C-alpha cells in the first residue's frame, strides 16, 4: 500500500480523498514539509504558528476539493490556498517584528539562482546576515515571488496561478524585487567591488 501511495499522482490521491476523507493524510504527508517552509519563508510565523496555518490549509483543501480541476497541478492549487491562508493570517495578526523568514541557507540559493550575482562577493557571515535582513525586509509581494521562483522552483505559469496575477505582473514583481534588493545591498556596501 505504501509503495502504491508513493507512486500515485496527486490527482489520484485527490480522487481517493473524495472516496474517503482519511486519505487526505497521504496528501498532507506529501506536502506538509514543502508548505511548512513556504509559510515560514513568506511570513514571520513561528514553527508552531506555521503548523496551525497548515491545518487550516488542509481543512480548506478538503472543503474545496471539488473545485480543484485538472487544468491546474495539484501542487499549484495547494500553494495558492497556502499563500492565501498565510496572507489572511498575517492580516489577522497585524504587523509583527520579523524573527524568521528567509534564512541564510535559502538566501545563498536565492542569490545564486536569481543571477543577482553578489553571493561570491559576500565573504563573511556578517555581510550574509545583512543581506538576509534586506531580503526579509522586502514587501511580501516581492518576497513571495522570489521564494516561489528561486526556492520552490515554480514556473511563471504556476506562479501566476499561485499569486493570482497575470504572468507579466509576476515577471515585473520578480525583477523589481531583485532590483530593490540590489539597490539596498549597494547602499549597505555589501559588494566587495565598487
Amino acid at each position: 500500500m505504501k509503495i502504491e501511495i508513493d507512486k500515485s499522482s496527486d490527482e489520484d490521491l485527490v480522487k481517493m480523498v473524495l472516496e474517503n476523507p482519511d486519505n487526505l493524510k497521504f496528501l498532507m504527508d506529501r506536502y506538509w514539509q514543502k508548505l511548512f517552509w513556504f509559510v515560514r519563508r513568506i511570513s514571520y510565523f513561528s514553527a508552531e504558528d506555521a503548523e496551525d496555518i497548515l491545518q487550516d490549509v488542509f481543512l480548506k483543501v478538503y472543503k474545496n476539493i471539488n473545485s480543484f480541476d485538472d487544468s491546474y497541478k495539484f501542487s499549484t492549487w495547494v500553494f495558492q490556498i497556502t499563500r492565501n491562508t498565510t496572507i489572511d493570517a498575517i492580516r489577522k495578526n497585524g504587523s509583527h517584528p520579523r524573527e524568521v523568514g528567509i534564512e541564510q541557507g535559502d538566501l545563498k540559493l536565492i542569490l545564486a539562482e536569481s543571477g543577482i550575482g553578489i553571493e561570491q562577493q559576500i565573504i563573511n557571515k556578517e555581510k550574509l546576515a545583512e543581506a538576509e535582513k534586506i531580503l526579509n525586509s522586502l514587501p511580501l509581494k516581492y518576497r513571495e515571488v522570489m521564494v516561489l521562483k528561486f526556492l520552490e522552483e515554480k514556473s511563471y505559469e504556476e506562479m501566476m496561478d499561485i499569486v493570482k496575477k497575470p504572468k507579466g505582473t509576476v515577471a515585473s514583481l520578480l525583477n523589481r524585487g531583485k532590483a530593490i534588493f540590489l539597490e539596498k545591498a549597494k547602499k549597505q556596501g555589501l559588494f566587495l567591488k565598487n
Partner: protein
Amino acid sequence: MIKKDKIKGVLVKIKKDEIKPISKWHCRLVNWSFWLATTVAVVLSSVFFSVILINLFEIPIETIHHLQWGRYLRLIFEIFPFVWFILVVVSLVLSLVAFNKTKYGYRYNFILLVSGFLTIIFASGFVFHGLKINKPLREFSENRMPRAFKKGPFDKTQNAIFIEEGLLGGEIIEKGENKIFIKNLVDEKWQVDFDDETKIKRNVKFDLGDQVIVVGEKRGKFLFQAFVIKNIENCPNSRMPKASLR
C-alpha cells in the same frame, strides 16, 4: 511527531465537525454567477454608453464644418452627460472586478482587459443606439431623474450658451424675405437672416410652427445669421419637445 499530530488533528476535526466538501454544483454556480455579473455589468455599461450617444448625436456631425472644431467640441462638452459617463465607468469597474473573480480571470493583463471591455462596450453601445434601446431609458431619465441627466442642447438652462456658440433652436413664428423669426425654448423671439450662401436642408419648408435648428452666428440682440437651417425632424436623435416650445 508534531507533524503527525497535526495531520491527525485535521482528520479528527473533519470527522468531529462533520465537514463535507462543497459540492461541484455549488463551485460551478459561484463561477457562473461571476460570469453572469460580468456580462450584466458590460451590457449595462453599453446601454449607458448608448444614452450618451443620444446626446452626442444631437449636434449634427455635419455642423463641424460650420461651427469649426473648437466650437463643436465646446458644445459637445456642454451637452456631455457626465452622470451617464460615471455610470459607464462604474459598470466597467464592476465588470472588471467580477471578471477577475471568475476562475481564470486573474490571468489576463489589466490593460488588455480594459481595452477589450471598452471595445465591446463601444461596439454594443452603437448597436443599442441603432436599435433605439436607449430611447426608453432616456425618456425615463427625462421624467424621473435629476437635472444632471437631462443635459442637452435643448435644455433651457443651456440655451444661451448654445446661441453664443452658434446653435439656435426654436419654432418658426413669422417669416419674411430672407429672414424668419423663431421662438426658442425660453420664449425669446429671434430674427434669423439667411442668404444665398446659407445651406437650407431639403425638408425645411419654412411653414409656421415648424421646428428648426439654425447653425450660424449671433450678430446682435435677438439677431442671428444662419449658415445652415435644418428641420428638427432631420436630426434623428433630437429630443426637442414640442410642448416646451409653446
